[in-house]
Structures are given as structure tokens and as C-alpha cells.
């Protein structure tokens, strides 16, 4: 029976780890640009790059959330009857990597 709800299974597979790896990489770029811009606040090229990677990160986090579960509380997959933020493993357990 189709209940209209997506299955809420947490997948610990290779594809999930790969997507998280890509999110980590893009966030690293953002952190570097963030610190650089703090001391170079008029660098247009760096600001453009920050905007670009920030949008890319949001898209990837949305994809991750829909497929596997939430990473931030500002982007949630509401089409699910489970508060996966709390029911899924926390990052220090190692399963996130």
C-alpha cells in the first residue's frame, strides 16, 4: 500500500559516504574563502566564488537530506513521519564517514 510517505531508512552505503565527502570538500572551500574574505573583504573574485560554492553546497545538502537524512535543521525533508535528526546516528559514531 502506498501510504504517501517515503521510506525513512538510513543508508550507510558507499553512495551516501561519497555524497557526504563531496559536501565536506565544498564546505572546506567555503571555510577557506570565509577566513580569507575576513581579511580581504573587497576581493570580488573571492566573493563570487563564495556565492557559487555556497549555492552548490545548499543543493548538495538538500539532495543528501532527501536521500539519507538531515545535516542541518534549516533544510529538512518534511515528507517523513520520523524526526531523523534525533533517531539517526550522531557524527562521532563514525558511521557518517
Amino acid at each position, binding site marked *: 500500500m502506498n501510504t504517501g510517505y517515503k521510506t525513512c531508512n538510513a543508508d550507510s552505503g558507499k553512495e551516501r559516504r561519497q555524497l557526504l565527502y563531496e559536501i*565536506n570538500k565544498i564546505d572546506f572551500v567555503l571555510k577557506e574563502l570565509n*577566513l580569507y574574505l575576513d581579511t580581504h573583504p573587497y576581493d570580488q573574485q573571492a566573493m563570487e566564488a563564495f556565492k557559487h560554492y555556497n549555492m552548490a553546497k545548499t543543493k548538495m545538502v538538500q539532495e543528501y537530506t532527501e536521500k539519507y537524512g538531515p545535516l542541518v535543521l534549516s533544510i529538512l525533508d518534511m515528507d517523513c513521519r520520523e524526526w531523523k535528526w534525533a533517531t539517526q546516528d550522531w557524527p562521532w559514531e563514525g558511521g557518517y564517514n
Partner: protein
Amino acid sequence: MWNYEKRLQFPVKITQTNPEIAQVIISQYGGPDGELGASMRYLSQRYTMPYNTVAGVLTDIGTEELAHFEMIGAIVYQLTRNLSPEEIAKSGFDKYYVDHTLALWPQAAGGIPFNACEFQSKGDVITDLMEDMAAEQKARTTYDNILRLVKDPEVCEPIRFLRAREIVHFQRFGEALRIAQENLDSRNFYAFNPEFDK
């Protein structure tokens, strides 16, 4: 305010426990040059910082240090997960275990508790930024010391990442100091303290 991201800044996935090395690495959790002290130092110094860009550096590096504090916590946790009483006794982890079981508690490798005396918030731009640059180098040295003792690549990789971040932060604080000095009297940087003398 802050928001939490439910991931580590760099992956920590350790499959072999090692309570001996956990007792060394815990120094970066709550030791004199650890990540908790780093974060508290920068986040405390920023309120009286008269230059917005420098306050930005302190805020954003102070925030990143919290992510490093979490990574060190994850490393120590995974190195001591599910230890048996025999493993605890044999490894010398018993002295920590008796007070904290297998929980995380901020202390130095030698057992000294985390203490705010391990950092300064002096209220003088040059003094504080010099301390921050030294702090990044001290943390880098600590990671170098840890890396000489650690053989497990699953532990080395996140430690190497953290070591590299100390160097980046040192560079950024160097730029922050340059910005501060550009705002001071170039003939005498110490003529007045912009955090106090208005």
C-alpha cells in the same frame, strides 16, 4: 548564536581502539594548547576588538575550533569505545576511567583539568593577536608530537588535517595583525591601546 551541522569537518572513522594513544590525544581536547582553549580564547577576545574584520577572524576561527574540538572528541571516543576492564587496566587508562568511565572530559594528557589560565584575553590588540599566533604554533607543535607517536593511518589522517588548519589560522592571524597595525600609529604601535584609550 550558533547552528549545528550534523557531520564532522573531516571524517573520523577508527576501527582499532588504542587507549594509550587516546590518553595522549586528549591533550588537544582540554590541554594547554588544545582546541577548547583555542575556541574560548578567540571567542572571548572578540568583544573588545575595535576592528570589524579582525573580530570576524576571531569569530570564524573560534567557530572552526569548536568543530576541531568535536573531531578530537570523536577520535578519543572511538579509540576508547567498548574497552574491557582488562584492556583499561593494562593500558594505564585506569586512572582516567575511575573518574570518567569512558566519557569525554577536557583535560591535558598529564591529567591536569582544562583551565581558563591556559589562555589570555588581554584587551590589547597587539598582545592578543601575538598570543593567537603563538597559540596556533603551539597547537601545531602538539600535533607534530602526536604524529611521532601515532602509527594507525585512521588516526593520523584527521590529526594531519588539524595540524594543517593550525598553519592556515596562523597565516590569517598574521594578516589580522597587519590590519591592526595599519590602523595604529606606524611610528609607535604601542602609543595607545585602541581597546581602551579612546
